[in-house]
């Protein structure tokens, strides 16, 4: 049967492979596609916005301001706004890394692994992701300070894609090196 699929795949590449997604992968993709909207519904709850995301975003602003201070840019911070006399950024949903975190968590929860490994992936991945996000926010502030055109490009596209790629990279690393390896080792 697999040989037949392989032969058919060679004849009609775009059409046949869609129907021939192996069940294991199909299950993962379906779980991911269900978990992502569920995660979204969770983060748009007013209570989560007020009690979790807003304080967290303020903390990000504090940390970003501190990081900018380390590289020699003294800025002031009010709430989620980092500013200097010539430029200011307001960190909102989408800039606080919540979108990348949701993608990462949905992918890890959807993957076939033990709950212990999933927890390691979610917690470790979140820390790494937010460390990168701090660099993102600080670099965006610096870009805006020196070059507004570059700021627009990096803010609206480049960093958004990069942060998702970081989440994707963390997931691939986790699935290949942590979840899979240990699960297989435990089962052996």
């Amino acid at each position, binding site marked *: 049967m697999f040989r037949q699929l392989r032969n058919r795949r060679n004849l009609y590449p*775009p059409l046949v492979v*869609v129907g021939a*997604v192996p069940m294991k992968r199909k299950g993962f993709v379906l779980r991911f596609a269900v978990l992502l909207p569920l995660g*979204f519904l969770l983060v748009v709850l007013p209570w989560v916005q007020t009690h979790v995301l807003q304080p967290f975003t303020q903390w990000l602003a504090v940390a970003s301001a501190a990081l900018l201070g380390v590289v020699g840019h003294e800025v002031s911070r009010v709430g989620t706004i980092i500013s200097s006399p010539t430029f200011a950024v307001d960190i909102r949903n989408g800039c606080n890394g919540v979108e*990348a975190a949701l*993608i990462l968590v949905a992918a890890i929860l959807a993957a076939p692994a033990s709950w212990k490994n999933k927890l390691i992936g979610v917690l470790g991945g979140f820390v790494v992701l937010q460390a990168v996000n701090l660099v993102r926010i600080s670099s965006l502030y610096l870009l805006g300070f020196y070059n507004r055109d570059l700021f627009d490009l990096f803010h609206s596209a480049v960093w958004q894609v990069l942060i998702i790629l970081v989440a*994707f990279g963390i997931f691939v690393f986790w*699935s290949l090196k942590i979840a*899979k*390896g240990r699960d297989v080792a435990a089962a052996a």
Partner: protein
Amino acid sequence: MSRLLLKGLAGFALGLALWLGLTEPYNRLVAVSAEGVVRLFEDPNRTDLRPDGKQVVIYRSDVPVGTKRPGIPLHDLTFNVILLTVLFAIDRRPFSNRNVGMYLLSLLILFPTHVFALIAWVQDLYASGFGGEISARYSDLEKSVWTNAILFYRLVGQFGIPLILRWSLTPEGSAADPAAPDSRAPKKRRPRRG
């Protein structure tokens, strides 16, 4: 690892060039398609979506001339093409017929999602942004649905779709495969006979 990074960088550069270079003609195509779909549900037809650089400006025939026209930054809805390009560029054999075919198929699938995102944003503006008689035609449920639809797309949907396409259209065992066998994992040894 360095080859993977190089492939990723090349994919990123290609995706960025595609997105920047084709933004204006692509915006026209998305705007015309979205306008056609919105008009299917309008009687009489009021919506006129006109691309203006990176934006799509909403002209409505029942809004007085001189009123400020709201614009939608369409490039904010379409940049996931860069992510999609990177995801296919990091394949083990990025230039194989299969991978290129799947990438082109993914681009085709991405197009209606961009049209839908623009429709959702237009409807959200009609429901909540225009006010007056236009917004009064929408129920609270409709307002909530359109607002959350565009919010979902912008927050996670536009990133989730390329990932789902990548995972659905590439074979098992590729770099992005959650079920890929780990080469470092200890393998069961066959017991020796004799």
